[in-house]
């Protein structure tokens, strides 16, 4: 049957194109980290390094303070994720399980907050942080990040909580458990996948965020990886090899997350959206 064979052929070609489109540009860019400065600035460009050189990687670490940016990113994204999941769980539980008035309005308002364009809150957020003297501090970046990530977290978690069966909860109530105990001992253990999904998405968001990090962290001691990469200073020419090395460090954790947790990420991104 030629039709069937032709179909497989077209499918194979399409998939090859899609994979090439998705992977090749980053692969080419990442290879810059292994090239010497001379090879990077070769005209016309060469795709593969002829001699593997570690000069860019060592310059990124020792000259440009890559590890400091890394530390700041880990701290900010890590703490934001932990707090966001905790606060989000607390808020999503009553939204999903308790008979609260104006539930839909509340949920819509929370979601709306997640849709605000960053520029429309940036000026005042900066002024508030300046008034508190929190510019160039970790909490100064973590708090706005919480406001940016909580809406989607609450949305994902309230979906998850809403689908859990009610019997265990009822039994615990009869046994006299408090609301907080029910949440910690019954709901959260059952909804671990949801909590995990929300956590991954929050982490990725904070790890990648640039706009607020640029505004709030003006001192290089506190800058996160995206700010570091965007502002990598060049003396005569741009230090492309160093930028590529820093990009690999920034991207590796995310690629690992994407490979190992792709199902969770996809379910989180499409949370409830297309569920029939």
């Amino acid at each position, binding site marked *: 049957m030629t039709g069937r064979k032709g179909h497989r052929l077209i499918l194979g070609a*399409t*998939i090859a194109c*899609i*994979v090439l*489109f*998705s*992977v090749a*540009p*980053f692969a*080419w*860019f990442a290879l810059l980290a292994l090239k010497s400065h001379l090879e990077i*600035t070769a*005209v*016309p*460009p060469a795709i593969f390094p002829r001699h593997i050189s570690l000069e860019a990687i060592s310059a990124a670490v020792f000259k440009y303070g890559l590890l400091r940016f890394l530390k700041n990113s880990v701290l900010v994204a890590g703490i934001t994720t932990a707090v966001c999941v905790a606060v989000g769980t*607390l*808020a999503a*539980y*009553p939204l999903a399980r*308790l*008979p*609260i008035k104006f539930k839909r309005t509340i949920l819509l308002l929370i979601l709306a907050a997640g*849709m605000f*364009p*960053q*520029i*429309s*809150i*940036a*000026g*005042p957020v*900066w002024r*508030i942080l300046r008034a508190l003297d929190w510019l160039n501090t970790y909490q100064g970046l973590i708090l706005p990040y919480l*406001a940016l990530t909580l809406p989607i977290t609450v949305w994902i978690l*309230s979906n998850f909580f*809403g*689908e859990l069966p*009610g019997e265990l909860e009822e039994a615990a109530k009869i046994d006299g458990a408090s*609301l907080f105990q029910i949440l910690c001992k019954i709901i959260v253990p059952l909804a671990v996948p949801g909590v995990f999904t929300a956590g991954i998405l929050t982490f990725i968001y904070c790890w990648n965020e*640039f*706009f607020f990090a640029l505004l709030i962290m003006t001192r290089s001691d506190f800058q996160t*990886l*995206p700010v570091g*990469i*965007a502002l990598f200073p060049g003396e005569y020419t741009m230090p492309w090899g160093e*930028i590529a090395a820093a*990009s690999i460090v920034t*991207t590796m954790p*995310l*690629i690992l997350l*994407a*490979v190992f947790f*792709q199902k969770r*990420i*996809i379910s989180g*991104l499409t949370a409830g*959206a*297309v*569920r*029939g």
Partner: protein
Amino acid sequence: MRTPYYGADRVIGYLFFLPLLIVLLIFSFIPIAYSFFLSLYQIVLGLPRLGENFVGLANYEKLLEDPAALNSLEVTIIFVCFSTVLEVCVGLLMAVAINESFRGRGMVRAAILIPWALPTVVASQLWRFAFNDQYGIVNYVCFGPDIAHYKAWLADPFSALIAIMLADVWKTSSFAGLIILAGLQTIPDELYEAARVDGANAFQRFLFITLPLLKPSILLALIFRTMDAFRVFDLVFVMTQGGPADATNVLQFYGYKKLFDEGMVGIGSAVSVMVFILVLSVSIFYLNLVGTTLLKKKETLL
């Protein structure tokens, strides 16, 4: 079926909201209101002696007469329209391909997640270098070793805007694809079987079954992408700084410059409010288009 909750529990339930409420209030809702408030004043940080005078809507009037602001609006709308439509098309292609069964599907799915997982700043540096006039891969792919034809893509107003759109399409198509894929997987196989029995070919099946049933997910992908595209900043900041000749000076970058570079707090806040209103009206338009079906589905879950 739920047992009634007693009064005390209900109060505690509201207490559970408190941390969320405080964070959102201070860092989302108050700032929006504060932006509006500031936009009614004339405040220039570089000229403190000017004072902070209430000027009403004068800042908005100035904006509407400012060619740079109008240009910025135009650039943003062009960027949003072209990149989101392209993203949804590429995403649709990805979704349809991945929905087929073949060996190594998991790997392919992980591969297309890579551009999405990349920090936008990294993607921006990547494409800035790819479009480089001498060392970039784009010139090499287009012209091979024939360096006489190499172009400075980011130095030309027209190609710079296209470069930024392409970078955005590369970065976010897979996101659109994943949302569409989720919708694709809810279409029952029986429909295709029935169509096949009736003699419909693959193209007809796509046109008359897949597309109509995918409409909600395609719209949803379009909504998410549009909201996000209005916020484009990182690509512009890294790749072009709004140039050349303001060709890529999108609204968020324009507002950022006004607020944080030029210290024009009043005008900058007016830009902020305008962007907010713009995004709000676009989302309301989209929500009406979807016919609130998505929200209704949500309600049954709660």
